[in-house]
C-alpha cells in the first residue's frame, strides 16, 4: 500500500467521520489516475456515487504535493454554502466564481486563489463566454492550475440530449490543454455514443469508469391525458396521496404558471420555479424544498443539474420532455437516498407541437446569420448588440441566440473585441452555417422525440426501456413500474367535479395588457422611433390603463376558436358573448367605459370592426369609428423588434375630432408587443379622450 493511497484513505475517513470507511469500486483508481499519472478520466456514475469525493480528494492530494489549485467547471445550482461545506470535509478550501456573485466577490476569490488561500474554485460555464471574466479573473489564476474538472460533461457532446453553446467553449479549451494537466470529466447521464464522443474530445489515453445509472428505488408510471384540464384534475386529486415532497416539471413557463395557480387554488402548498425567477428567490425556493417546507416545486428544466435532494420522493412530468435521456436526467433525481420514489410521466396532445417548436428553434436561421455577418463585415470596427438590432428586422432574443451560437463556433466568424460595452467584430474566416451538423443534430432530436413518444406507449417494463436508451444493462424487468406491478401503481382516475373545476380554471385565466411607460430610453431614441408623432420619451398621461385579452392564440378553448376566426376572416359569435361575459363579470375596469372604438385595418376592414360593433351592442355602450388609418404600412406582426415596430406605426393613424366623453374600450383582435395599443391610446389621449382600456380577443405575445 503506497503512501499516496494511505493518505487518500485517511482523507476519506476524516470526511465521513468513519475510521472504517473504504472507497467504492473505481474511486481510488480514479484518484490515482489524476494524482499519480497526471492522466485524463471520464467518470459516468449516478448522482450520489461520490464523484465529488474523487475530485476533492485528488485536489487535496495534489495540493499537498505543491500543485496549484483545481478549477471546476460546474453549473452551480446547489446552494453555495453547501458546496463550500462539502469541500471543507476533505480539507479543500473552495471559492466560487459565477454571475450571481458580485464583482467584488469574484475579485475576492481571485485574490484568495493567487495568495494560495484557496485550493479549488468552481466556475459556472457561462463565465467562460465572458472575455472580461477570462482576462481579469481567470487568466491570472490559470498559470498555476493543478487539476481541471468538468461536471455534467455530456453537455459538450453534440450527440447528447443537452448540448449547450457555453459548453462548446469548454470543448475548445480542452483541445488545447497539454497532457501534463490532469483532467477529470463527470456525468450521471450519458449513453455510449455520448461517452465515445466525450472520450474523443478528451484526447488519447482516457480512463473510463462507468457504473449503473438507473435507480432501484424508482417506481415508474406513464399516463396519456390529451387535455390539460385532465392532467390538472389528476394532479389535484392524486398529489395529496403521494408521500413526501418532490418536483413537477412543465415544458414551458406559462404551463408552470397554470399548474401552480391551479394547485394553489386547491389548497396545495406548491411554488413556481423557472429561469426568469430572481436568483435569490431561486435559492430560497431550493432551500424550502430541501427542507420539505413545501410539497412541490413546479419547475421548468431550469431546476436542473446540480440540484441534489437525497429524499426527493417524486418527480412528476406534466408534459413530455424531448428525449428519453433528458427524461431520465430529470426523473433520476428522485429516490437517491430513500427506498421508494415515484416517477410519473403525464403527457398530452400539445406535446408534439411543443417539441417540434423547440427543435425548430434550436439553431439560428440562415438568413439571420448571414444578415448579422454582413452587418459586421461592413462595419470598420466593432458593433454592439443594440446596433445590430437596429439594423436587422429580427427579434432581439433571436439575435442574441444567433450571436451566442456564432461565438461558440470553431473557428468563430465573430469575436468579442471590447468588454464595456460589449462589441463584436467579424473575423477573417469565411463562414457558412454548418448545414451538415445542423441537419444531423436536428435529425437526432427528431429521432429522440420519436423514441420518447414510443416510450409513452410501450407495454413492457418501463425501467428496462429507459436503461436500454442509456446503454445500461438491465437484463431483468424492474418489478416496480406500472407494467411490472400494476396493483401498486397510482390510480389513473380523477373526480369529475375536479375536472370541471380545472376546465373552468383554464378558461378564466386572464391575460393583462400592461401599459408601456416609455417610448424610449431618452429623447434621442424616442425621436428616432417616432419621427412623425414625436411622442415625449415618457408616455405619462398618454398611457393607457391596464387592458385585457380573452385568450391565447391557438390554445384549447377560446384560443382555438379565435385562431380559426382569424383564418376565416370572421369571428365566431360566441367570442362576443365570452368577451362580454369576461368584461362584465370578471374584469372591473377602474371606471366603466362608456364607449368603444377599434383598431382599423385596410387588409381586413370588417373583421375587427364587426366584432367590436357586436361587443359594444352586447355591453350596451356606443360604438364609434374614432381611429382612421391614413397611411399604408407593412403587417405589424412582421415587425420583430421594438425599433421596427415603432417605425412601422409612426404616422399611420389619425383620430377624428369630437370624441365622446368618458373612458373608452379600444378593441383589436390580437395583442402582441402592445405598441399598436400604446400608439393609438396616446393619440386618443392627445385628442382629449378619457382613460383608454385596451381589449384584445387573443394574445400572441410570447412574454405575457
Amino acid at each position: 500500500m503506497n503512501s499516496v493511497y494511505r493518505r487518500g484513505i485517511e482523507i476519506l475517513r476524516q470526511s465521513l467521520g468513519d475510521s472504517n470507511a473504504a472507497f467504492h469500486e473505481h474511486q481510488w483508481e480514479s484518484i490515482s489516475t489524476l494524482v499519480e499519472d497526471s492522466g485524463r478520466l471520464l467518470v459516468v456514475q449516478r448522482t450520489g456515487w461520490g464523484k465529488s469525493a474523487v475530485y476533492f480528494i485528488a485536489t487535496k492530494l495534489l495540493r499537498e504535493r505543491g500543485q496549484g489549485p483545481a478549477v471546476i467547471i460546474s453549473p452551480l445550482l446547489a446552494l453555495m454554502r453547501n458546496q463550500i461545506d462539502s469541500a471543507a470535509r476533505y480539507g479543500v478550501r473552495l471559492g466560487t466564481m459565477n454571475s450571481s456573485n458580485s464583482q467584488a466577490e469574484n475579485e475576492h476569490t481571485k485574490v484568495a486563489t493567487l495568495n494560495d488561500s484557496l485550493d479549488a474554485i468552481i466556475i459556472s460555464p457561462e463565465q467562460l463566454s465572458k472575455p472580461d471574466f477570462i482576462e481579469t479573473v481567470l487568466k491570472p489564476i490559470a498559470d498555476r492550475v493543478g487539476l481541471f474538472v468538468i461536471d455534467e460533461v455530456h453537455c459538450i457532446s453534440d450527440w447528447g440530449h443537452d448540448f449547450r453553446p457555453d459548453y462548446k467553449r469548454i470543448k475548445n479549451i480542452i483541445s488545447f490543454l497539454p497532457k501534463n494537466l490532469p483532467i477529470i470529466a463527470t456525468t450521471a447521464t450519458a449513453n455510449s455514443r455520448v461517452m465515445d464522443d466525450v472520450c474523443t474530445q478528451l484526447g488519447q489515453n482516457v480512463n473510463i469508469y462507468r457504473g449503473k445509472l438507473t435507480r432501484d428505488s424508482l417506481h415508474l408510471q406513464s399516463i396519456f391525458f390529451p387535455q390539460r384540464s385532465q392532467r390538472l384534475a389528476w394532479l389535484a386529486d392524486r398529489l395529496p396521496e403521494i408521500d413526501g415532497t418532490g418536483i413537477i416539471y412543465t415544458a414551458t413557463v406559462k404551463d408552470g404558471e397554470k399548474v401552480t395557480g391551479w394547485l394553489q387554488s386547491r389548497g396545495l402548498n406548491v411554488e413556481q420555479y423557472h429561469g426568469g425567477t430572481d436568483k435569490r428567490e431561486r435559492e430560497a425556493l431550493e432551500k424550502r424544498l430541501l427542507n420539505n417546507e413545501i410539497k412541490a416545486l413546479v419547475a421548468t428544466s431550469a431546476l436542473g443539474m446540480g440540484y441534489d435532494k437525497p429524499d426527493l420522493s417524486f418527480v412528476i412530468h406534466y408534459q413530455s420532455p424531448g428525449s428519453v435521456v433528458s427524461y431520465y436526467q430529470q426523473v433520476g433525481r428522485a429516490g437517491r437516498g430513500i427506498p421508494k420514489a415515484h416517477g410519473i410521466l403525464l403527457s398530452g396532445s400539445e406535446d408534439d407541437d411543443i417539441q417540434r417548436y423547440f427543435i425548430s428553434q434550436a439553431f439560428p436561421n440562415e438568413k439571420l446569420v448571414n444578415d448579422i455577418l454582413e452587418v459586421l463585415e461592413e462595419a470598420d470596427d466593432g458593433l454592439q448588440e443594440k446596433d445590430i438590432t437596429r439594423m436587422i428586422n429580427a427579434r432581439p432574443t433571436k439575435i442574441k441566440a444567433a450571436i451566442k451560437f456564432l461565438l461558440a463556433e470553431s473557428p468563430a466568424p465573430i469575436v468579442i473585441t471590447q468588454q464595456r460595452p460589449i462589441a463584436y467584430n467579424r473575423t477573417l474566416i469565411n463562414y457558412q452555417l454548418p448545414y451538415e451538423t445542423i441537419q444531423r443534430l436536428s435529425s437526432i432530436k427528431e429521432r429522440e422525440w420519436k423514441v420518447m413518444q414510443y416510450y409513452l406507449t410501450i407495454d413492457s417494463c418501463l425501467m428496462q426501456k429507459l436503461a436500454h436508451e442509456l446503454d445500461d444493462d438491465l437484463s431483468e424487468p424492474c418489478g416496480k413500474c406500472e407494467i411490472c406491478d400494476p396493483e401498486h401503481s397510482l390510480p389513473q382516475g380523477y373526480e369529475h367535479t375536479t375536472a370541471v373545476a380545472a376546465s373552468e380554471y383554464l378558461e378564466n385565466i386572464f391575460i393583462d395588457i400592461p401599459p408601456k411607460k416609455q417610448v424610449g430610453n431618452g429623447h434621442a431614441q424616442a425621436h428616432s422611433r417616432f419621427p412623425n408623432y414625436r411622442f415625449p420619451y415618457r408616455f405619462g398621461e398618454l398611457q393607457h390603463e391596464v387592458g385585457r385579452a380573452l385568450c391565447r392564440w391557438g390554445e384549447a378553448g377560446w384560443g382555438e376558436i379565435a385562431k380559426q376566426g382569424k383564418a376565416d376572416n370572421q369571428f365566431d359569435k360566441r367570442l362576443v358573448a365570452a368577451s362580454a361575459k369576461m368584461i362584465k363579470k370578471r374584469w372591473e375596469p377602474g371606471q366603466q367605459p362608456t364607449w368603444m372604438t377599434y383598431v382599423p385595418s385596410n387588409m381586413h376592414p370588417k373583421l375587427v370592426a364587426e366584432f367590436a360593433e357586436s361587443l359594444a351592442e352586447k355591453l350596451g355602450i356606443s360604438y364609434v369609428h374614432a381611429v382612421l388609418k391614413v397611411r399604408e404600412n407593412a403587417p405589424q406582426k412582421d415587425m420583430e423588434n421594438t425599433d421596427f415596430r415603432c417605425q412601422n406605426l409612426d404616422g399611420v393613424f389619425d383620430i377624428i375630432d369630437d370624441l365622446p366623453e368618458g373612458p373608452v374600450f379600444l378593441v383589436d383582435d390580437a395583442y402582441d408587443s402592445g405598441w399598436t395599443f400604446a400608439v393609438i391610446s396616446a393619440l386618443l389621449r392627445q385628442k382629449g379622450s378619457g382613460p383608454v382600456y385596451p381589449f384584445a380577443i387573443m394574445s400572441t405575445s410570447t412574454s405575457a
Partner: protein
Amino acid sequence: MIEENRQAVLLLTSRFSSKNGVFDPLTPTEYGRFALWLHENNYQPGTLLSQSDEIAEKWLDPKNKITTERLQYLLGRGLAMSLALEKWQSAGIWTLMRFDADYPKQLKKHFGQNAPAVLYGVGDKGLISKGGLSIIGSRHVDEDDREYTEKIAKQAALEGFNVVSGGAKGVDETAMLAALEIDGTALGIMSNDLFRAALSGKWRKHIRQNNLALISPYYPEAGFNTGNAMGRNKYIYCLSNYALAVRSEEGKGGTWSGAKENLKKEWIPLFVKSPSDATGNKALLEMGAQSLNLPSEEIQNNPQAEWLIEKLKALKSDSNVSDTEPKIINEQMELF
C-alpha cells in the same frame, strides 16, 4: 509527439496574458541555450510534458537563469496557454515553430539557435519565405514621402515583388496597402497588436484573398513598446532581399538603427529615398546605401516595365545575397 513539442515550446517561450507572471518566459537566447542542451541530450521539448522532473534534475544552467523552479512554473501554465490559444485561434492566428516546414529558413540562417522559437501570424504562410522588397520608415509621413512610398510600392507590386514591412502606421502601412490595392502581395512583421490587426477591417479582405500575411515574434496582444519596435526590424531585413528606407533621422529611432545594423552585418542591399533632406538618409548613403529615385511617369504607367528589376540586378555583382536557398547551419529537423 509533434503536438507535444508545440505545446512545450509555447509553454517555455510564450506569454499568455498582459500581466506578468511569477517568472518570465524564456528569451530567444535563453531558449536557444536550453534547446541546444535538450538536443545534445536526445530529448525533444515534448518530453518535458511527461518527464520534467527527470530532465530538470539533469539540467544546470551555466548562467543560472533557467532554474528548475522557473521551468516547472512555465510548464504548469497549461490552462493559461489553452485560454490564450483558444482566443487567438478565433481571430485566425496560427503559430509557426522552427521545426515546421513553413518556418522561414532565412531566420534560422541568420540567427541560428536564437531564431524566434515561435512566430504568430495570420494569412498565407507562403508569403513569409517569399522575400521581396522591404519598405520602411517612420510613423510620421509628410505628403512627399507618402507619394513616394505609394509609387515605389506600386511599382514593386507591378513588377512581381512581394512588399515587406512592419505593419505600423505611416510608411509601413502606406507601402503595404498601396501594393495590396493593385493586387500585389505583402508581408507585415508586427511588433505589437497582431490580434487587433487580425480583426481590423483594413487588412481583412486582403488576408482573405491570400495576398497578405501578418506575423509577429511577440505576444499577439502586446501593446506598443519601443524595444520590440526596434527589435523586430532585423527580421524585416532578414525576410526580404532588398530594403528601402524612406526616411530616417541620424542617430534616432528604429529606422536608423535597423538600417545601420543591416549595413554593418551585410544582410541585404539597402536603398534610401532620393532626393531627401533627412539626415539619416544622407548618412546612410555615406555608409554604403544606394539612392533610389522615383521612376518616370511613363514607367509608372507601363505594366511591362522592369525598372526596379533592372536597378536591383545592377547590385547583384557586389552583394553576397543570393536568391537561392540559404544554407542552414543545423539540419532543419534538429532545431526545436
